[in-house]
């Protein structure tokens, strides 16, 4: 029974994670984030008994039985992983798109921004980002 419960839980979590990734890739990252939150939330609201029983089911015991791992902990792990993927995808998308825009502006004006005046740390970092930053390469 424990093996069956583990397999069932794993399949459910895998389906959930793959669906979120599919939405992230094919549709929208915001929808994926919403889906990530909404599915467990709606499940708890619609079927509180079943959902709570599922989430509180103990899958493993670590450290000689001291640390229990429930389905809820697995859900938290999946949540944190997928939130991280979505957030960093969003951030990198913004970063790269900003680089493309900047390159286009640079071509249009023919000159760089106010470089070369400042000698402080901010200037150095600016130079660094301008050199290795979002150049659209």
């Amino acid at each position, binding site marked *: 029974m424990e093996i069956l419960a583990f397999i069932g839980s794993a399949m459910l979590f895998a389906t959930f994670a793959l669906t979120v990734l599919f939405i992230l890739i094919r549709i929208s990252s915001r929808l994926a984030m919403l889906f990530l*939150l909404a599915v467990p*939330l709606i499940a708890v*609201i619609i079927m*509180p008994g079943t959902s709570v029983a599922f989430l509180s089911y103990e899958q493993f015991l670590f450290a000689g039985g001291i*640390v229990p791992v429930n389905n809820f902990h697995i859900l938290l792990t999946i949540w944190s992983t997928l939130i991280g993927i979505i*957030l960093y995808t969003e951030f990198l998308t913004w970063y790269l798109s900003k680089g493309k825009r900047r390159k286009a502006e640079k071509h249009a004006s023919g000159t760089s921004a106010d470089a070369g005046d400042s000698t402080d740390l901010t200037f150095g970092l600016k130079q660094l980002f301008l050199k290795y930053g979002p150049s659209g390469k």
Partner: protein
Amino acid sequence: MVRVIYINPDTREASIETFRQGAPGIEIEALADKTICDSNEEISSIIILTNSGTVPLHGIILTTGSSAGVVGEPQLQHAVLDPLKVKKFIVPVTAPVTPVARNMLIESRITGYDSRGIAYSDPASFEVQVRPYVSIDKKVEAAGKVSGTNEMETDGYFRITLRLRNTAGFGTILDIRDELPSSMIPQDVERTQWKVSLDAGATKEISYNAKPTESGSFTFGPAVAQWEDGGETYTVDSEPITEIFRVRGSKAIVEKSIASGYLHAGESTEIVVTATNAGASKVSMILTDRVPEGLSLMSGKVTWEGELEAGASKKISYVVKAIDIGTIRLPAAGADCTDEEGKHYTAVSDTPVVYIDDALNADHSQVSNSGASYQAYAHTGQIPGSGNTELTRIEAAGFMLSAFITLFLLLAIIPAIMYLFIRGVYK
């Protein structure tokens, strides 16, 4: 030397051969009239000597010695033993006085001579076990309502007799101890321990009655006598009693168990009370249990009344909900029994303990946004509502939402800082 064997008068011939001197042969068999004896007891050492030789054995001397005992006649003599004749010697030996069992070695040696004065000798030895000088014997008899061999009713009793003996030549003071089976009580004595002064060579008897308080099969352990000798303490046990005594009658056993001894306030658990008729006859029973303060009865019954055949059992179970936080000792469940003879008795169960924790706080008004509650959830590794039927779906959803937001904010810290920084650089 030669000797003539045959003379033929006709031919006047004589047959002769070389004369050879014969020799006596010694065969000894040594034994005793007892292989185990008491301290200070006189036993007989028997030595049987057979001359298996061809000439008589002269000047026979039997020398006897012992490692511990005292030999009555250390040396015995006999003039002559012809070939193929048997001589039986009896030597009295007194066993030593010993506080512990030990072996006594008795050694004998036969020496004899032939006609030419040549000595022949042969030894023999054997061992005898010597018991301590204090001995205790225990005898158990079923008395009263005896219904068969070693079988009795609960109204009967056991007559126990302890026989003490001191075979030493001096008196001693003994501490006697006789352990009874736990369900038996001595009737005419307060304790089954005595201090007895036993004179030299004296024998005493201690008798008392023991009454069984419940039915079943019983065996009696050995009685123990303890005394001091020369600054040392010695003990001796009686021979083990292998008989099994059976006491017929009704006997009820009540057991109480709880499904979970650790609860959170608001959680429910099942309590099971099992009554078993372990006796040999039918019994009428009223089984009752009680829900203590701090718990409330959710479902099930706490009483039962009926009859139980011999060997049958009845189980009642009920569900209680934890109300108060703390440690609650459940009261003992009791069975008021009446056997077929109208005899009343009561059996009670153990008193299990339930620990009720407040880790999942029963104050539901704060569950959804209480930091302390979430700390508790993190501590227990459970989400609210695990086994808690009173947790609402909104509270559960609130917990999920807050967990999601917390994770989101934690993971968004680095991208947010990077975003703000890059925005500042490219401003």
